[in-house]
């Protein structure tokens, strides 16, 4: 009987301790405001407030000025969409194909490729009509072929569509032979666009046109 009582009391004490610790934890975890941002942290008069607001407006104006003034391209690699737009309006929206995210390892070699479409801000660096694809090493490895020693053996016509816009590091916005796969993530990092949309993008974009990919 005494033993039972001891166990019961021990359990009660344990529960009480846990409740107290939890209560302390909750009090300690109560959200606090960021330093210098709470009520009373800054009591500014009307004049200072007006000055602060003017400074904010000026900063906002400067931030706004960082956006491109001419047409630019936004690519959503998750939803496989391309939008051609200006600050004020959307000029074109197209379904595209972006990187598959797959990995290719060179058999017995040290090289590995991850086929992602790069993210961030880029710009059109080159424009080409009827582009020829200079097949990189990974294309031969993927096809189980030997990597050619001569550059001419890497040339392949017709696979990139009618136009190509290069945006650096071998990445292009180009056409496709596989229009049924538009909307899927199937490429090796380039952005494939349907023929009609590609023509519009090619005509609207010039060297230096900004590309935002996310």
């Amino acid at each position, binding site marked *: 009987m005494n033993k039972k009582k001891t166990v019961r009391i021990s359990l009660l004490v344990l529960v009480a301790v846990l409740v107290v*610790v*939890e209560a*302390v*934890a*909750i009090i*300690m*975890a*109560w*959200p*606090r*405001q*960021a*330093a*210098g*941002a*709470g*009520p009373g*942290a*800054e*009591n*500014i008069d009307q004049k200072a*407030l007006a000055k*602060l*607001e003017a*400074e*904010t407006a000026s*900063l*906002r104006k*400067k*931030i*706004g000025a*960082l*956006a491109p003034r001419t047409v630019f391209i*936004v690519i*959503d*690699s*998750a*939803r496989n969409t391309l939008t051609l737009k200006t600050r004020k309006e959307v000029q074109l929206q197209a379904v595209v194909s972006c990187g*598959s*995210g*797959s*990995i*290719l*390892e060179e*058999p017995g070699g040290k090289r590995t490729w*991850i086929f992602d479409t790069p*993210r*961030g*801000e880029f710009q059109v660096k080159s424009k080409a009509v009827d582009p020829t694809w200079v097949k990189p090493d990974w294309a031969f*490895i*993927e*096809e*189980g*072929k030997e990597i050619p020693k001569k550059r001419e053996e890497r040339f392949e016509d017709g696979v990139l569509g009618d136009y190509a816009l290069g945006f650096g590091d071998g990445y292009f916005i180009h056409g496709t032979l596989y229009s049924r*796969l538009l909307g*899927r*993530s*199937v490429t090796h990092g380039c952005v494939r666009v349907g023929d009609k949309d590609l023509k519009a993008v090619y005509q609207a974009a010039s060297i230096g046109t900004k590309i*935002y990919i*996310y």
Partner: protein
Amino acid sequence: MRGRDFRALTVSCVLALSLPVWGVDQTASLQNRLAQEEIVLAKTPSLYFIVYLKSRVIALRSRGMTLQEWKVQSIHAWGEAPPLGALTLAKKSTLFPPKRTKIKPAANEEDAATFELDALELKDMPARFTLFLSGGIRILVRPKARGFFPRLGNFGHLIAWNLWVPLKNLSFRLRKKPFAAIDIKLEKKEDGQALYWALPDGVKGLVFPL
């Protein structure tokens, strides 16, 4: 205390963080600070994010332009308020991280002609994950529960959020390490998946009580 009371408690915690209790000067001061911090990020060619706690919006931005925006259904918080400065996404953590497919090089030309579509797509992304930001800040992202099992999962989350997270905060504070947890519930599962996709490790961002 019942779960609902706990929820009310955390909601009031967030309200304590939010604007209505602040004067106009504090709002103006915060907006000024946000603009000061954002201009630094906007001057770089990298993408960045802004979490607006009061407006319940997460924005992915570049050069001051919003590329994508996600509406947040509810926000709860524990611990210190995130610092009003640029934070870096150290890592994303999830129970089942998406796995990349390894391409097997073709053995011959016939093999190369067969095409298999095996890509990492939006649907493969998790909708429930944690973003570990610099400065000991973690943002727990989850979608609104629809169906029995997701609701059960959210109930488990509620218990963990209200009991375990404060204990974790206590342990961090005792070790003098910074800790802040923000629980974000999104309207749709797809929003969570898109957010996971859009925020790569190393991306910088701001968390502001605006």
